[in-house]
């Protein structure tokens, strides 16, 4: 079967919970759209958003930054859909348009994956020659190298070295708004969270910085409360008000 989902069933009381792993938030979203049999061009965003949050909760995603970002996006679209539309307003930019485009693009790619999976499986079932002769020393074909190629490689090395001071390029500007959206989505799911729920272990410096500024900003707006029980212990992030996300 070509499904990317490795399903395993676990009995829980009288019903069965399907433990599924998804290849990312778009995969989960598409699966919901399919299961709920809704029109991809007219997604009932409030309903799907609720389902998405429920599924995230159910799957207890640990490294869920990507999912949180999607949750934040859905919540934002949901809010935009509620904005009053004025009669006679010709131009209405559907806030879902970008999401639909991404979903279709992703779905198209899934179709290619099915093709690759079939082709790859065919090839896996054939062996190539394994034994190769140790004739004389295998002749080395002449090398085709240009100085430009070498220099590009030098440049690549310089840029890949993660050493402060080697170069001062900031790879990405910090994104406080994005981080705020993630924190809000997180607190829409549960009453409290910890620092490492907000920032992945392997987060880039700009992500750490963004998250930090977001927490401080939300604390300032009294949307959450930060607490640290002991010095150096994990910072606890508690929902202070029913945030707009919930």
């Amino acid at each position, binding site marked *: *079967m*070509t*499904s*990317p*989902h490795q399903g395993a069933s676990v009995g829980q009381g009288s019903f069965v919970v399907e433990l599924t792993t998804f*290849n*990312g*938030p*778009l*995969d989960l979203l*598409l*699966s919901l*759209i*399919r299961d709920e*049999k809704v*029109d*991809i*061009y*007219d997604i009932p965003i409030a309903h799907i958003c609720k389902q998405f949050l429920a599924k995230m909760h159910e799957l207890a995603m640990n490294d869920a930054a*990507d999912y949180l970002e*999607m949750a934040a996006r859905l919540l934002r679209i949901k809010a935009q859909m509620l904005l009053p539309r004025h009669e006679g307003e010709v131009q209405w930019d*559907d806030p*879902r*348009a970008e999401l*639909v*485009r*991404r979903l*279709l*693009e*992703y*779905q*198209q*790619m*899934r*179709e*290619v*994956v*099915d*093709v*690759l*999976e079939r*082709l*790859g*499986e*065919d*090839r*896996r*079932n*054939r*062996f*190539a*020659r*394994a034994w*190769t002769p140790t004739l004389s020393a295998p002749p080395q074909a002449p090398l085709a190298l240009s100085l430009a190629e070498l220099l*590009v490689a030098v*440049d*690549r090395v310089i*840029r890949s070295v993660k050493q402060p001071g080697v170069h001062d*390029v900031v*790879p990405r500007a910090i994104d406080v708004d994005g981080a705020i959206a993630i924190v809000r989505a997180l607190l829409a799911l549960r009453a409290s969270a910890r620092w490492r729920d907000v920032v992945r272990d392997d987060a880039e410096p700009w992500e750490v910085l963004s998250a930090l500024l977001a927490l401080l900003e939300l604390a300032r707006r009294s949307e959450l409360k930060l607490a640290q029980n002991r010095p150096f212990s994990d910072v606890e992030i508690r929902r202070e008000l029913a945030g707009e996300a919930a």
Partner: protein
Amino acid sequence: MNSLAKLLEAALFASPRPIPTDELRALDADASKAAVQSALDELREHYNVDGHGVELVEQGGGWQVLTRPEYTEAIERAQMAVRPHRLSGAALETLAIIAYRQPIGRADIAEIRGVDVGAILKSLLERGLVDVVARGEGLGRPLLYGTTPLFLEQFALRHLEELPRIDELSIALRSSEPATAPATAPVPAVSAA
């Protein structure tokens, strides 16, 4: 078989990788392109008609002798050869995007997949299925990735154009103008489930 066909067979048996037609021609300076092609045809025909455990296939930018699939199970059971691991769904997604959009940078791949792809890119690079093919413009001049000849070989493709064209996929991108979307728009299956 004629002597050119025998020479080609010898060379193909000596190589674990597909041999490009150019290289096959270099085996015999006197052989015309047509003669090489007809010798390849003869060899392929011989394997098919005469009943062999191997066959000649054109893929990965060249010609390769491979075992027939019906013997794979027995060979693996007898532990004489092992099949490579299957690629994960995430790795296949990343490969699909790179195959169609190359040269493409990590950020753009992540945008389409909706998740970060750093670790998967690294493993695809290590397996030799993709490589850095250029640098992008703009901040930090990001590395751009493309597929390798080994990618073609591992997916039994002669060239990239053998992948379905975008307009041949059942889901071609439509304008997502909500007004024009018919209420009855079919909900396409994500994957056969």
